[in-house]
């Protein structure tokens, strides 16, 4: 018996629980990638429908209609109209939600016009009783010309029925459920005659928007007399929308019944508190504060555990393996490098955990509503809050999240300032420096000083982002029509499975994405640190032992001196020494210089670099990296290298400097110009240098 593979596309409005349905169908069998050439996330999962039928399930970006207004939405229509695409769906599953059925059906009626078998999922049926909603399914199926599956992805109801419906997709009619072309019969009749082989709705989509399809060139359409003015087209689109809503309203009059006396008023009560002019802001602030305190407090124990485990692993490796270059590479290059990455998994996990809970619960939209007016004073939109908050995880998805900001100027400013918010890559740097220079004490018995410093750094990041936005708003001369629509979804208890899948996926992306760079750089660094160009490097042993002042030292001390001398004369030492004059006014030595150079590719490399450098150059008694850094002494001033002044200076440098190639790349992609990423690089980095310089000079 032959195995059959079918493509299933999941499509729906945002906030309908489409991704939960996807997660229920596919579990962890998911692949996340990007659509070629653009940064829209592409999620494909696998699902076994029957013993001989497997499905590739594609989770398309959420969209309100097929009239694309962003790159995310273009992806949807481009896939749905390109029959040659490898993932072109055999069957489409439109996910709708029982409480917003009316609006959700608009997209459904458009999809039906594409003549692809379509199943309608009505999700969140567990809320029907609570809201007093009843549905006449046979009536709806007849008028919408589809198969309807009632699902509660939260309670895991209806998923098996959905699988059966998908398996028997060939029985579903591809007939449209209303005749939208009646809005302008003459126009559409000529169109139909000229292109008899094309679907009418597809032609209409190509005419009204900027999409290209492999088998249908825009140009052939433009040459004919189908061009109408923009305003005429928009009028027609409006007519089309009204027509569709008329049909939906008529259908739902019989098919849907809401007994409003049953509906509870939980939503409006919660709205009143969460968007209150005092309580609203207070709650928002308390939530943010709670998140940052817990990131530092809760992850302390697992972090210490990982740090010391890798230190003992490194020691064990060097003791148990035959001595030589290979052992050194493993024990001093690779193991500390990997440890440097894995140590930050706890903090990054917590961060993504909180962000995905805030988004899933529907709270984020209330924050957008609450903050819009304030943000506009700084040239931003209420919707900039989401990028600025998710920027605390990573600037790359945050910059992509600006796509739903309708106003180009507000969007550009958001893109430019988002990298100033404290991303998770800064967290490792902050964590290690705070651990070194800020005492682990409590203020008023409950506020941890280290946690407080971390929170302060986050606030400085936000503050700088807002301030830069204000200046950019004054400087940039762009005239844009402003417009703003945000959906206020109902409150939901976040689903454990959805949150966990997001957290696992993002953490994995961090570990493997950043991990690869860090590991490669660690190995290169180790090589550069254990080799040197000059005779001094090779003769380090004889040079040190022959010095008379060293004659009285113990064997261990001599060995340390040799190691330190070797490091100084190695390639990396020479590089660090070269830039030392530029960074010593900031309070840094050449070792930190090397770490700064290497972290221009990605910030988190800083810690890995220091880990490698300190493993190469240190003794074995004090084996954790943190302890070694703590003991490091500047030979010129006889002070600790990581003291309060240099620590603060470093923290500020990392707060402002633009050290992330991926962010620059994504800025280039989203703004379609090199001007903006280069501006970010130059302004942020020079500002960082100046601030760090001032801070050190004042504090030392």
């Amino acid at each position, binding site marked *: 018996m032959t195995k059959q593979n079918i493509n299933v596309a999941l499509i729906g409005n945002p906030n309908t629980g489409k991704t939960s349905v996807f997660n229920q169908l596919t579990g962890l069998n998911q692949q996340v990638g990007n659509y070629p050439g653009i940064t829209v996330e592409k999620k494909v999962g696998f699902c076994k429908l029957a013993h001989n039928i497997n499905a590739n399930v594609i989770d398309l970006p959420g969209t309100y209609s097929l009239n694309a207004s962003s790159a995310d939405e273009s992806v949807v229509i481009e896939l749905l109209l390109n029959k040659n695409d490898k993932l072109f769906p055999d069957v489409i599953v439109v996910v709708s939600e029982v409480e917003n059925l009316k*609006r959700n059906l608009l997209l459904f009626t458009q999809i039906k016009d594409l003549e692809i078998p379509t199943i309608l999922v009505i999700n969140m049926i567990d809320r029907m009783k609570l809201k007093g909603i009843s549905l006449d399914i046979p009536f709806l199926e007849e008028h919408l010309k589809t198969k309807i599956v009632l699902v509660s992805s939260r309670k895991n109801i209806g998923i098996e029925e959905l699988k059966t419906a998908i398996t028997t997709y060939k029985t579903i009619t591809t007939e449209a459920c209303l005749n939208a072309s009646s809005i302008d019969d003459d126009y559409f009749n000529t169109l139909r005659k000229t292109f008899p082989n094309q679907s009418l709705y597809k032609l209409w989509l190509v005419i009204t928007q900027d999409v290209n399809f492999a088998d249908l060139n825009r140009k052939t359409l433009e040459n004919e007399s189908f061009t109408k003015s923009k305003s005429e087209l928009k009028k027609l689109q409006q007519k089309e929308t009204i027509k569709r809503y008329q049909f939906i309203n008529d259908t739902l009059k019989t098919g849907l019944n809401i007994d409003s006396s049953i509906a509870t008023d939980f939503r409006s009560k919660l*709205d009143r508190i969460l968007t209150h002019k005092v309580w609203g802001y207070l709650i928002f602030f308390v939530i943010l504060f709670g998140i940052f305190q817990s990131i530092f407090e809760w992850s302390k124990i697992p972090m210490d555990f990982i740090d010391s485990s890798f230190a003992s692993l490194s020691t064990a490796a060097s003791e148990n393996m035959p001595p030589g270059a290979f052992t050194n590479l493993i024990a001093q290059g690779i193991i500390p490098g990997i440890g440097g990455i894995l140590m930050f998994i706890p903090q990054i996990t917590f961060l993504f955990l909180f962000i995905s809970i805030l988004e899933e619960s529907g709270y984020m939209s209330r924050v957008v*509503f609450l903050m*819009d*007016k304030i943000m506009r004073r700084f040239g931003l939109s209420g919707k900039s809050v989401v990028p600025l908050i998710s920027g605390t995880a990573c600037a790359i998805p945050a910059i992509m999240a600006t796509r739903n900001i309708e106003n180009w100027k507000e969007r550009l400013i958001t893109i430019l300032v988002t990298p100033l918010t404290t991303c998770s890559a800064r967290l490792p740097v902050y964590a290690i420096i705070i651990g070194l220079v800020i005492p682990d004490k409590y203020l008023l018995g409950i506020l941890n000083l280290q946690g407080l410093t971390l929170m302060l750094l986050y606030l400085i990041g936000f503050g700088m982002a807002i301030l830069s936005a204000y200046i950019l708003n004054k400087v940039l001369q762009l005239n844009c029509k402003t417009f703003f629509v945000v*959906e*206020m979804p109902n409150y939901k208890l976040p689903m454990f499975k959805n949150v966990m899948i997001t957290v696992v996926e993002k953490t994995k992306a961090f570990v493997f994405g950043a991990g690869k760079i860090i590991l490669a750089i660690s190995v290169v660094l180790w090589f550069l640190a254990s080799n040197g160009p000059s005779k001094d490097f090779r003769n380090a042993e004889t040079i040190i032992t022959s010095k008379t002042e060293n004659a009285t030292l113990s064997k261990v001390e001599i060995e340390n001196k040799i190691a330190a001398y070797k490091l100084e004369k190695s390639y990396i030492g020479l590089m660090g020494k070269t830039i030392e004059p530029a960074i010593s006014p900031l309070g840094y030595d050449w070792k930190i210089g090397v770490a700064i150079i290497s972290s221009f590719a990605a910030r988190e490399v800083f810690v890995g670099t220091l880990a490698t450098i300190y493993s190469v150059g240190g003794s074995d008694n004090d084996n954790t990296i943190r302890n070694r850094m703590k003991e490091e002494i500047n030979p010129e001033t006889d002070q600790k290298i990581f003291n309060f002044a240099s620590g603060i200076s470093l923290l500020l440098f990392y707060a402002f400097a633009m050290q992330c190639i991926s962010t620059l790349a994504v800025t280039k992609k989203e703004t379609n110009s090199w001007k903006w990423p280069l501006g970010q690089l130059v302004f942020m980095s020079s500002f960082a240098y100046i601030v760090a310089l001032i801070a050190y000079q004042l504090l030392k």
Partner: protein
Amino acid sequence: MKTTIANLRKGEKAIIKDFDADIIPLKLLEMGCLPGNTVQLLQIAPFGDPLYLNVNGSHLAIRIETAREIEVDCITK
């Protein structure tokens, strides 16, 4: 003077009248903001802007300058 969504009081309901399709974004229409549909003002954000509406069963927020463009007839109780 014409009445728009911006003139509504908190909790007040109204019917959307005709409006200029060139000014109102298509996305708003697609979310149910169409002539003949009911609209209710649910919440006003601190500082008086944006407005939180229930339009044809959809909950959404728009800025006051967009609200000023949408003419309505109040439903008198």
